[in-house]
């Protein structure tokens, strides 16, 4: 395979407004997950592990941290001579003014010159806000085998869940015949994962046409896929079995973290054959105090635990003071839980200091409480 026969483009421009204060200062893909990772580490590590050399990351919202983070391509081993991570932000050009990305497809269209310069045969479109491990090389092999114009990764969901997703209706050969966004009465249980492989030449034509269409939303789901279907292009569903989660809300981010605690967790981050790579922050090892009690937790380096932690994910450099209790919670990196504070069913945002004796969240609350610094500094 030629080094750059497939280029990955990660859509990482969204704010993720349903994560509220977690994305007040950083874009959703930069939000921490699993104690030490950032969400964008997942698609980037998947790319590296799938032997993809060149990755474009399309950023827009609060992109300073995200841009500098993803640009350090050596974190994921993507710093090869024939590849790298390219940060693609909206730009001013010779003939046009600075224009923001108007949609997922527009973000790719705006970087056609970049893709042309790499000249790939295939383009892999990814989202910067999903937690999963996937071998894109296998998906590409399927795309080729099926002689497809586009291959869409799907997973089976319950019919009840199907109302929340973009659903692919397929024929018996898993060829996609219809696409429905959040159907009230789903005909199929194959939900799109927002992962597409396109044959670049074909995609390029459709992107150019879409850019000229004044009625288009410039969106893959709403515009590009329907156009492909209209023109009877070969659209194939690629069934993915394994862990996948959109962590777009406080509750789903919490749930995905809790999934790491399950016995024989489906999302095994300890698998040496498919590591998820991230920044090395030079933290100390964990220091567990004399009175500490840690039960059913996922704890990462740099944390100093003097109190109790139960059913929780404890991030980098977190401090849990004496007598403090952290239960059913996710403590993001750098947060400090003061002495005798009690935190239950919460996500405590990065670097937040929960004062000594404070009580956050409750075992009875249906929703997960987000504990964030509201000072706005």
């Amino acid at each position: 395979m030629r080094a750059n026969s497939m280029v990955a483009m990660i859509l990482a421009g969204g704010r993720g407004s349903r994560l509220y204060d977690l994305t007040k200062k950083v874009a959703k893909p930069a939000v921490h997950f699993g104690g030490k990772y950032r969400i964008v580490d997942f698609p980037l590590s998947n790319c590296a592990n799938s032997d993809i050399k060149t990755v474009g990351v399309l950023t827009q919202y609060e992109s300073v941290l995200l841009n500098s983070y993803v640009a350090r391509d050596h974190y994921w081993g993507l710093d090869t001579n024939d590849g790298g991570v390219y940060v693609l932000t909206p730009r001013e050009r010779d003939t046009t003014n600075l224009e923001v990305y108007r949609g997922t497809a527009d973000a790719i269209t705006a970087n056609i010159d970049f893709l042309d310069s790499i000249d790939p045969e295939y383009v892999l479109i990814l989202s910067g806000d999903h937690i999963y491990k996937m071998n894109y090389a296998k998906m590409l092999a399927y795309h080729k085998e099926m002689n497809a114009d586009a291959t869409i990764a799907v997973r089976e969901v319950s019919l009840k869940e199907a109302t929340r997703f973009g659903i692919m209706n397929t024929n018996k050969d898993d060829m996609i015949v219809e696409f429905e966004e959040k159907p009230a009465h789903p005909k199929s249980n194959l939900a799109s994962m927002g992962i597409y492989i396109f044959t670049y030449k074909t995609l390029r034509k459709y992107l150019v046409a879409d850019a000229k269409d004044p009625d288009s939303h410039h969106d893959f789901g709403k515009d590009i896929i329907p156009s492909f279907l209209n023109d009877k292009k070969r659209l194939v569903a690629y069934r993915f079995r394994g862990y996948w989660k959109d962590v777009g809300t406080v509750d789903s981010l919490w749930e995905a973290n809790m999934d790491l605690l399950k016995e024989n967790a489906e999302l095994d981050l300890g698998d040496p054959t498919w590591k998820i790579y991230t920044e090395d922050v030079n933290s100390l090892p964990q220091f567990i105090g004399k009175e500490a009690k840690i039960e059913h937790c996922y704890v990462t380096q740099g944390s100093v635990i003097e109190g109790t932690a139960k059913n929780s994910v404890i991030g980098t450099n977190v401090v849990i003071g004496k007598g403090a209790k952290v239960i059913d919670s996710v403590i993001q990196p750098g947060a400090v839980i003061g002495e005798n504070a009690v935190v239950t069913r919460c996500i405590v945002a990065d670097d937040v200091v929960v004062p000594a004796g404070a009580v956050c969240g409750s075992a009875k609350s249906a929703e997960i409480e987000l504990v964030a610094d509201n000072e706005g500094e």
Partner: protein
Amino acid sequence: MRALGIISFEDNTANIEGLCDHRPVPAIAVMGRYRIVDFILSNMTNSGINNVQVYCKEKPRNLIEHLGDGSHYNINSKRGKLRILYGEKSFSSDVYNHDVANYMLNMQYIEEDSNPYVVVAPSYFVYPIDFNDVLKQHVESRADVTVLYTNAKEAKTQFLGCDVLKLDKFKTVTGFEKNRGKLKSQTISLEAYVMTKKLFIELVTKAAETSSLYWFKDVLADSVGELNMKGYQVKGYVACFNSLPEYYRISMELIDHKRALGLFKPGWPIYTQTNDSCPTIFSESAKVSNSVVANGAIIDGTVEGSIISRGCTIRKGAEVKNSILLPGAYIGENAKLDHVVVDKYAIVHHIKKLEGTNESPVYVQRRDRI
């Protein structure tokens, strides 16, 4: 900082029994995720030393893999360089394989370095130090050689076999002796020196000409009186990994977080190579207290007063107390360990109980299966 960093190797008085059979002292794992060499090397790079030579007496494989090109120690990959140097030819006898011989064999790399000063230090002493402060004193005092030292309070049991500095009231070195454990308080040389590169080369050459068995410290001892040698006191935490009981004692001492902060100073990062391990899983049956734990471990059992390194597994019912597990060690169900050092990837499975003491902890060999 305008100095070449030279990380020297320790002489034969330092021997961490068992662990040293498999790798040199600088490559020994410590505090769950570090190697001993990380401390002195981080001191150098944090001080702004961008060119570092790490001398390795033998078994360089482990060290080469760990140090790599030095980029993870914050060495500028264009302006700086990390070199791992060792005697490329074999020595007819181990007694000829000393620091001076290795400097002589690699002299061209020392000569071609453009820095006017050298900072020479071995890795088996660990302490935080900003070498800029040492160089400043060195220049201001107009010393020929500045020797780092610590005022050891427990010299009867610690720093045994290390050099003792005799200092006058102006902190001028008047002689070198050996610490044979007779006195509680001793002025222990850290075998770390600052001098001009020119003088360093002269002294190395003189040592080689004087005796083919001379270590660098021998030529320094000969030069007392001829050269203006000044002491520089390192205040704060200093430890010396020179035996298995000391390796054990120091590790146990650093489990205390406040104590550890004497070595791991805020704003003075200790770099090491990342392993991309996932966080550690503490299961429902885990009971962990008073311990240091690295990432990538799975803990189902009980851990007390111990150091658990990257990727260790402790199964249900197992009890690990006052012990050190090196990376990848596996402790099977219901095995009970007290005062044990388990080397890398060893499996303790078929034995119910292992018990050592502070003075002689039990050592389980690398990749052993018991």
